[in-house]
């Protein structure tokens, strides 16, 4: 198991956002996490990645218990994430952005005297090439169109060489053809580099088109969990979430 959650709970005041969530995830799966707004999906991501501390419960990653670890330590253990609102380094070039993530991955962040300009140059271009942005390496990140920013964020996450990558709405605000490009990029990362993915997604086309397993979240608990075909045919899921139309 690459990820195992045991009885994870998190409350904000009276509101119980996560209620004893338990689940396991096998490696190299494209797993979608869906559910209505306020179901607790983002909170689950935040608790797993160390942004919030869980009230109770335990998190195991790749055989290690990571409950209560600092966010940077969890990332160093190769569990990384992207954000709902595209999170990049606006005034840095694409090259510098990806390079910074590689420097971090290689634990060189406190190296004060190495010359940085050409450091990890090959690796940077390898990654930028993988996401299809190599020709824009010297662009300033903020100048990229929205879809490319999402790819850049993926490149930054990739540079960290994670084993498990949590994607918070990877295709939000994208045109349908861009959605397909991003999702096929995700699939290539799984196929060629053996990454495991959990992605929160509202675009049902992307979910049923690409996910191999779907977890439905509702009111802070795992409401349904299974293959796409099982979720599609689940009457209760249709009622609470899909409006009975799928």
């Amino acid at each position, binding site marked *: 198991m690459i990820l195992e959650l045991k009885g994870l709970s998190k409350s904000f005041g009276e509101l119980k956002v996560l209620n004893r969530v338990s689940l396991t995830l096998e490696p190299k799966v494209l797993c979608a996490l869906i559910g209505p707004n306020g179901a607790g999906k983002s909170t689950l991501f935040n608790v797993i*990645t160390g942004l919030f501390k869980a009230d109770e419960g335990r998190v195991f990653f790749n055989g290690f218990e990571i409950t209560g670890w*600092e*966010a*940077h*330590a969890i*990332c*160093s253990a190769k569990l*990384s*994430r992207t*954000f709902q609102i595209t*999170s*990049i*380094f*606006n*005034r*840095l070039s694409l090259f*510098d*952005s990806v*390079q*910074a*993530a590689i*420097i*971090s*991955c290689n634990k*060189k*962040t*406190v*190296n*004060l*005297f*190495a*010359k*940085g*300009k050409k*450091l990890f140059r090959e690796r940077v271009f390898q990654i930028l090439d993988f996401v299809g942005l190599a020709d824009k390496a010297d662009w300033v990140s903020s100048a990229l169109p929205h879809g490319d920013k999402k790819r850049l*964020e993926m490149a*930054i*996450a990739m*540079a*960290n060489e994670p084993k498990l990558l949590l994607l918070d709405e990877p295709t939000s605000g994208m045109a349908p053809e861009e959605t397909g490009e991003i999702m096929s990029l995700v699939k290539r990362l799984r196929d060629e580099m053996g990454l495991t993915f959990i992605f929160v997604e509202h675009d049902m086309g992307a979910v049923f088109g690409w996910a191999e397993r779907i977890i439905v979240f509702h009111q802070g608990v795992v409401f349904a969990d299974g293959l796409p075909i099982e979720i599609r045919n689940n009457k209760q899921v249709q009622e609470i979430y899909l409006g009975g139309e799928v």
Partner: protein
Amino acid sequence: MASVSKMIKVEKWGLSAVIVVLLVTLPFILPEYWVYTSTDIMAYCIFALGLNIVLGYGGMIAFGHAGFYGAGAYVLALLLKKTNVPFWAALLLAPLLPTLFGVIIGFFSIRRRAFYFAVITLAFSELIWAIIIKWYTMTGGENGITGISIPSIISTTNSLYLFTLAVTSVCVFTIYRIIDSPFGRTLRAMRENAQRMEFTGVNLDKQRLIAFTISAFFASIGGTMHAIVTRCAFPDLADWPKSGEVVITCMLGGIHTFFGPVVGVALLFFMNSIVGRFTQYWPSVLGLLFILIVFFLPNGVVGYIQESKLAGWIKRIGRLG
């Protein structure tokens, strides 16, 4: 490709050589007053570039760096006045204590962001100032310490200029390397998006603390050099208007460019000596200037030049030469 980059490299080295030759010959051309002022400008440049490590590259609004500047001046002055430590040893020892202050102050202040960080750094630097003012028997309080003796080899205006130029060059080169290092690159990425950087596995607090300490180290060298140049140390050096002045100076030149603070310092001294001839209200002029920068040149003078067409022209002129 290769030949173009080679050309740029030659150009860069050529430009550097011209600047070095210019700086070395300056004291033999300029009147003595300006040689002396240039020497003090260089000391202030170390201070400003040191601050800019956290201000421009770390995105941390440090409002108490005068504490380190003042401490650097006072430690040197006290070592020379109260102990038998030889001058050259004192010069090397002087930045150590302020750097230790940097570690301690950094430890507490980097846990807070933006406004709160600014206020905490300000409060700590006022503590240093208060110690200087109150510890009369040691520091002479408001009278400061005067008449610091320096070795005869650097006691003429020109030799002091050349010595300061050497120290400044080493500092500028070192800071330049730090900014370009993996550490500096990480710091810049954190400035743009700290959370994203944390989620690549960076320990933000550790990174910020190191940046703050290095910054304090260079600020204190600036103070030490100032004490050598002026041969005295006064409490004003550690007081908060000095902290504000250096922040404004960096912004005037441009905090997101390496040499922005240097240009800022040159402009500050130049304007001070010009405006000072007409009015005693220099601080008001400085305040007005700050408002104008924030509104019209948010990226400073150097930042503005880089963004405008001027950059292209300067490059072209550079090619011709």
